[in-house]
């Protein structure tokens, strides 16, 4: 369970308030107008934005003082999720040990993750030799080996075409279903939310609202969301 | 750093044999170079001394003195070789040098009486030019002509300082006027002798400040008689190069032996065709063939070391003033 208690998150001159709880295993889309603070919210959860006030918990663990890499969080950014000079297998291996000293068992784990995302034959290639969709799969394979409780997506598939993006979201859906991880994903497309998320956090006017059921929210949007959806 | 020191140690090929005493001689860089007298001198002395002669090059004469003053009495040096009479006053004033016991039949143009320093070679400063071009007969004729010259800066070069003292010795209070008249003949002033001579050979000027012995190099080593030294009738300034023993030497006997060796046949016969200067004691076989073609100044000019020391700063100011107009 992810709990944000009375949080005030700062990003430059901009402030975002959040007081909400996300149940374990749920899939939550974060939507709202541009510049409303969607990314700010998940960056705070990942540990890249300080809390000005309030507290944040994963289950009973306070997160505020924990460094980003030590949090129970795996995150994919808008871009730059792979190191171009490392092979596919190395990029995935980073999710197990950052210094890439992997024993046989761990290498097998990397291979298994590549099989799971359908890239078993690409292990020795560099990212530049892969298509955009394949690059996303590498990043997801790494998420898989990281085995964290919380998966944060900051629109990593935004540059993909609609069909490919849908395919990736479905894969994400399958992966979190298998692992039981909690998903928190930024999106500006309500269709993405409908496709994968059972709940939605609306971020608007400096406030991250508590999660609501996806279908009912999108079908009967409050004024702020209505203005955004048009 | 440990590894670096180790690496440096491995690279150093000096065999420090503990049984053989070591004599350290500081000298100017061109003396120790493979084309200078150093290698032959080292071989000849080691044959007779039962010691290891270590020649250390340290810039030029003035840098050598600065080096010794920096090191002071702690210096490893036993002998300093390569000062000239414009530096000996300051060298003596440092109190770092001991008197010598050398006696020799010098072939210098003057009587040598110095108790601290022993001369090993000498030469006259002179302007070198292409033999087929006419040369002026003195500074005044030079100044009146449109002959272009390259000289060295007295602040950074031994010949440069020599020229300063030459004009001062020849003209005294008239020196500033001579410099003022010369200023339009001076193409440029270089940091050292090598730059000046290189520019002269490139054809940048008609004459370059060097030595009366310079044509001997071209004649003997290159069989090229195209260079000549201009004979000036007001006389030529002498450069006498000397060596001295350091008072704090831990090898005083060896140092004395070296100074004796320095005025001996073995050392003196090396000098003419490696240092391209006149030996302080003419070898029994005489000077190498070719030296007889060199011009012989009628008048030798030399300020005493005390005069040189006291006039140096005045002469430099006059020079700077005249050439900075």
């Amino acid at each position, binding site marked *: 369970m992810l709990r944000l208690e009375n949080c005030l998150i700062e990003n430059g001159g901009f402030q975002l308030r959040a007081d909400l709880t996300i149940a374990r295993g749920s899939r939550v889309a974060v939507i709202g107008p541009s510049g409303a603070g969607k990314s700010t919210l998940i960056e705070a959860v990942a540990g*890249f*934005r*300080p809390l000005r006030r309030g507290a944040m918990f994963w289950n009973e663990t306070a997160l*505020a003082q924990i*460094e*980003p*890499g030590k949090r129970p*969080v795996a995150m994919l*950014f808008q871009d*730059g999720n792979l*190191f*171009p*000079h*490392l092979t596919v297998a190395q990029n995935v291996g980073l999710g197990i040990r*950052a210094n890439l000293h992997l024993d046989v068992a761990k290498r097998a784990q990397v291979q298994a993750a590549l099989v799971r995302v359908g890239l078993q034959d690409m292990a020795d290639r560099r990212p*530049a030799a892969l298509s955009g969709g394949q690059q996303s799969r590498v990043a997801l394979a*790494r998420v898989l080996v*990281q085995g964290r409780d919380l998966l944060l997506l900051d629109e990593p598939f935004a540059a993909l075409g609609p069909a490919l993006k849908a395919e990736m979201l479905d894969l994400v859906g399958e992966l979190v279903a298998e692992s039981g991880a909690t998903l928190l994903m930024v999106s500006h497309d309500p269709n993405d939310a409908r496709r994968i998320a059972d709940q939605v956090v609306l971020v608007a006017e400096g406030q991250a609202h508590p999660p609501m059921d996806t279908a009912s929210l999108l079908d009967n949007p409050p004024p702020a969301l209505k203005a955004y959806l048009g | 750093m440990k590894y*670096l*020191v180790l*690496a*440096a140690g491995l*690279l*150093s090929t*000096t065999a420090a044999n503990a049984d053989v005493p070591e004599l350290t001689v500081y000298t100017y*860089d*061109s003396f*120790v*170079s*493979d*084309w*200078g007298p150093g290698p032959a001198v080292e071989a000849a002395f080691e044959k007779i001394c039962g010691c290891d002669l*270590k020649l250390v*090059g*340290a*810039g030029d004469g003035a840098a050598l003195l*600065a080096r010794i*003053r*920096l090191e002071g009495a*702690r210096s490893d040096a036993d002998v300093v070789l390569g000062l000239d009479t414009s530096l000996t006053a*300051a060298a003596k004033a440092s109190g770092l040098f001991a008197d010598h016991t050398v006696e020799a039949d010098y072939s210098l143009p003057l009587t040598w009486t110095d108790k601290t320093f022993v001369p090993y070679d000498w030469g006259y400063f002179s302007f070198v030019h292409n033999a087929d071009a006419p040369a002026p007969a003195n500074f005044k004729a030079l100044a009146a002509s449109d002959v272009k010259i390259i000289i060295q*800066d007295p*602040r*950074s070069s031994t010949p440069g300082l020599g020229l300063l003292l030459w004009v001062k010795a020849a003209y005294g209070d008239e020196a500033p006027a001579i410099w003022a008249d010369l200023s339009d003949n*001076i*193409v*440029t002033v*270089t*940091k050292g002798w090598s*730059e000046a*001579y*290189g*520019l002269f050979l*490139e*054809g*940048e000027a008609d004459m370059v400040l060097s030595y009366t012995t310079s044509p001997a190099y071209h004649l003997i*080593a290159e069989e090229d008689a195209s260079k000549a030294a201009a004979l000036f009738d007001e006389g030529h300034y002498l450069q006498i190069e000397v060596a001295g023993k350091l008072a704090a030497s831990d090898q005083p006997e060896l140092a004395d032996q070296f100074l004796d060796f320095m005025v001996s046949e073995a050392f003196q016969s090396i000098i003419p065709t490696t240092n391209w200067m006149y030996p302080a004691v003419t070898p029994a076989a005489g000077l190498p063939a070719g030296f007889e073609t060199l011009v012989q100044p009628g008048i030798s000019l030399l300020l005493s070391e005390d005069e040189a020391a006291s006039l140096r700063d005045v002469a430099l100011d006059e020079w*700077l003033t005249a*050439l*900075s107009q």
Partner: protein
Amino acid sequence: MADCAQPVSPRLGIGAAIVVAALILGTLAAVALRAEPGRGLGSSDWAALRFTLIQACLSAGLSVALAIPVARALARRRFVGRRLLISLLGAPFILPVIVAILGLLTVFGRAGWFSSGLALLGLEPVQIYGLHGVVLAHVFFNLPLATRLVLQGWQEIPAERFRLAAQLGADARAMRQLLEFPMLKRIVPGALAVVFAICLSSFAVALTLGGGPRATTIELAIYQAFRFDFDLGRAALLSGLQLVLTGAAALVAVRVSAGEGFGTGLDRPLQRWDGSTAGARIVDGLWIVLAAGFLLLPLSAIVLAGLPGMLTLTAAVWWAALNSILVAALSTVLLLLLALPMATAVALGRGGVIELAGILGLAASPLVIGTGLFIVIYPIADPFSLALPVTALVNAVMALPFALRILVPRARAVVGRYGRLALSLDMRGGAFVWRVLLPRMRPQIGFAAGLAAALSMGDLGVIALFADPEFATLPLQVYRLMGAYRMETAAAAALLLLALSMAAFWILDRGGRWHAEA
């Protein structure tokens, strides 16, 4: 706090900056403390200061002013040999001073090619000696450097901006206002400061081309204080003055510009839509030909002078070449050990003081550093046994300012782009350095290492006070050969030196880019 989290600590870099500052300022202090009461600064020293400032300002201004059109032409033209030309442009910068002077005068001297050409037309020879000669020589040395700095600025303008400007129908003038002026405003101050600092410590070039003692610079005054007057206090004072001037220039530049570097990526001509007119082609072509001629003619003179003597090179020269390679290799390693942590620390936002420490190497008088080190080391160790490491270290510090300008922008980009990803993967310290930072910076490391190796090779290197009699470097042998009247062999040795420097640069620079992923 989590917001301060960085994938790597700046501590090493701060340590390296302290080492550099200690070396430069500590040696200065050592000289000052050793001084006996001297006569302080006299009127001739102030005249030297004035001349130094005038020539440095003019040289920097002209070098950068000429670099702008040359860099623009190189940025928007693609032609056979472009890459080779850009590599060769680096050559004047790494030549030993005496060699460069002779090369320059073979072309521009009273009896040079240029004057001979004029004589054929019945014209007077060019008068090279004077302030304009000093400036000409400094432009020869620094135009390539300034060109690389400005060229980098051009290449950093994203291609999309040019596309947008073209789509908006911007003409050449609008293009300048929209894209080029803002870029130049960012790049030019830094370029001016670097060239200014280099010219500040000029000595032999200024004296020789300046035509006499009118062209006395501070560095010559330091030399005089040391060897003519043995006035260590004045030498230290003058050296301090030089450091203050350089520091001030650096501070102004850092404040005005954003500390941009000259990185790599010079092989990629920008696709632009503004330079396609016939007029622009001709102007660009002219600039490239003029710059190439100005820089390459003296180099050709050096090559032509050196070729006849190549067979006269003796074993002593080859040994010296080996020593120079050794010094260059060690110096390059030391440089990287200093520059990489410093660049990283700057990238992490610890700029200011570290960059200042880095640029001081430009202004430090080698004579004062050498003397200071000697005073410090002499009581505890044999200076001869330290000849190699001391020479390598001093060369590394002298190359540091250039290395930082190459490395810092790239380190910033890598930390900016991959810092968070690394943090989210709990990848820190050594893992980040070895797996991300160094591999991502490889082309820049190769470029910086190449420049350092070449500079170190060409530097006179062995500071006289540390001259191990058995350990002569190639530049020193060049001087010794000249001192022994062997001008032809000296010219050949200089050519060998030029070839070695260029080869060292080429191998390291190419090596850095070999198989380097985008």
